[in-house]
């Protein structure tokens, strides 16, 4: 194998993908879908009020508000930025905490407290925010609790927003569309245009052609996966680990795509196979949409071992120790794919010559 030739073929692949409708579709659709979900569901149905604080004096009040887990809170360094974000609807309410706010609460001194509110803030959000502020203010002012409120959750207590529920499916679609579809489409197009025959009488080995296509799937799968995570603000705290698991996932998907492309001889068969077998690929993402679906069902799908490590690191802040067993299964699956691919390449050499 020559890295130089793989590089040459990879650049050719990348260039060809830029002008191919199906390739663009495979790469752009998840990103567009992600943007839509983020814009529509992310803001309207997130369920948690989104608050901003401008507090150059570092009050206890702000610290207590930032610690509230049922709120989405951000601390701003710039007042202008907070006002701009409120106007744009990125935050629902922006609070300007005045100097000496905590002390004024304790002393009972009247104080102006300026608050900007986005005009379209749902009433539910305003109520939740106001109640929380009242509680925090009472605590700082040292007021005695005259009533103890006991909250009994009814219905779905561990509510997750629709955007959060859709994220796993979105991530999986991103990796599958780029990782599986791009190399398989490229391989079939190469066979149909018989250019693979022309490459076959150059010093380039068939395995180098396959490697270049796999690399294309990996790069695109990684890139779109990272964009999707970034758009959904789900990059987590272990960025390097996330990139690593995304790389493994994209590689596994791309190996599968290259294998499919090697086995299929025309575009219609490939698309029909993807349509029919697509559920097996995105199954874990769909199961995540079903509330309280048992985890073992998702584990039956091979792509679970692509999705779960990514989501564990991105959403739940998992470390390598938490996901090693899933990664091990993924590596075993990849070894199986590589063996299958090696066998297919050996057979392809003969079949190609008979095209």
């Amino acid at each position: 194998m020559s890295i130089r030739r793989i590089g040459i073929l990879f650049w050719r692949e990348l260039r060809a993908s830029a002008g191919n409708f199906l390739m663009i579709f495979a790469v752009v659709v998840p990103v567009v879908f992600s943007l839509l979900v983020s814009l529509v569901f992310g803001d309207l149905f997130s369920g948690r009020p989104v608050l901003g604080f401008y507090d150059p004096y570092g009050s206890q009040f702000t610290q207590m508000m930032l610690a509230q887990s049922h709120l989405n809170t951000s601390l701003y360094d710039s007042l202008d930025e907070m006002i701009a974000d409120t106007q744009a609807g990125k935050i629902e309410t922006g609070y300007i905490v005045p100097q000496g706010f905590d002390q004024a609460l304790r002393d009972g001194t009247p104080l102006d407290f300026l608050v900007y509110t986005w005009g379209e803030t749902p009433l539910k959000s305003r109520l939740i925010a106001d109640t929380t502020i009242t509680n925090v203010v009472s605590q700082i002012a040292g007021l005695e609790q005259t009533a103890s409120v006991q909250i009994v959750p009814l219905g779905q207590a561990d509510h997750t927003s629709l955007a959060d529920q859709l994220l796993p499916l979105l991530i999986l679609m991103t990796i599958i569309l780029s990782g599986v579809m791009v190399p398989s489409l490229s391989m079939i197009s190469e066979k149909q245009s018989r250019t693979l025959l022309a490459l076959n009488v150059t010093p380039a080995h068939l395995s180098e052609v396959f490697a270049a296509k796999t690399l294309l799937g990996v790069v695109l799968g990684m890139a779109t996966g990272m964009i999707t995570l970034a758009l959904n603000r789900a990059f987590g705290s272990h960025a390097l680990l996330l990139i690593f698991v995304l790389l493994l996932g994209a590689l596994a998907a791309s190996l599968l795509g290259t294998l499919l492309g090697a086995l299929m001889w025309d575009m219609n068969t490939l698309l029909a196979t993807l349509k029919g077998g697509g559920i097996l690929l995105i199954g874990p993402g769909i199961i995540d949409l079903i509330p309280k679906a048992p985890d073992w069902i998702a584990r039956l799908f091979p792509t679970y071992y692509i999705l779960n490590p990514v989501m564990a690191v991105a959403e739940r802040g998992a470390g390598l120790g938490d996901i090693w067993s899933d990664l091990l299964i993924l590596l075993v699956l990849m070894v199986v794919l590589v063996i299958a691919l090696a066998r297919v390449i050996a057979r392809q050499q003969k079949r190609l010559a008979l095209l």
Partner: protein
Amino acid sequence: MRKVTISARELTYRYGDLTAVDHISFEVAEGEVLGFLGPNGAGKTTAVRMLTGQLRPSEGSAFILDEDISKSAKQVQQYLGVSFETTNLYEDMSALENLELFARLFNVKNFNALELLEKVGLSGREKERVSNYSKGMKQRLMLARALINHPRILFLDEPTDGLDPVSSQTIHAIIREASAGGTTVFLTTHDMVEADKLAHRVAFINKGQIAALDQPAVLKQHYGKRTLKIEVQDGQGGTHTRSIPLDGSETAKEVEQVFASGNVLTAHTEEATLEDIFIEITGRGLLG
């Protein structure tokens, strides 16, 4: 004596029960143009695929530049140029990009793509997408691609099939130039006229076997019948043609008699074509 560049020894290929190429043996020398002639399905393309390392022979061996092609195909392919019968260019790329891609794969340095494109008559359109090219232009570009690594052996599969006379002439000129420069040319075709014009030797392949292999002139001499065609004016103002075999025992007498009549309008000799000889040897036509 010129160096042998292609040596096929009992080369055989079977598709299941069908023997497509049946124990063929021949040698081709450096700078020689070998016309590999036969009808569709005769085994020409299968033979080329074995000689270029695309197919492993079922039996026998092929030595290309003294290397067993089935054992070291990739090393040998570095020195081969192959032009296919069916177009297989990257149509989403320009001619220039196609050539540059293959030059990089062959690791050819200091090559002048524009010069090569000018040689095949494509200069001025080098930046156009290949999908906009005509069949003749694509065929010429494939030939340019085959020449990119300055090959020692050029395999051309039906290079002028369905092309206009101008494109055909361009390709013929390139084949002659390559041969003069020492490149062996293995020309697969069913165009007998083309083979007669270009090939130093021709091999007739029929049902997977080589039926004859020699210089066109020798084959014509050996198998063809030479005749003298004389157009004679008859008494009623019409004309008729007499064919007199040149190798007959009474030829001289017959010719003398015809000319003595004083009614001869035209006279010319006629030799057998390669197609006539192919039919005579194999009992079938080239299109059959």
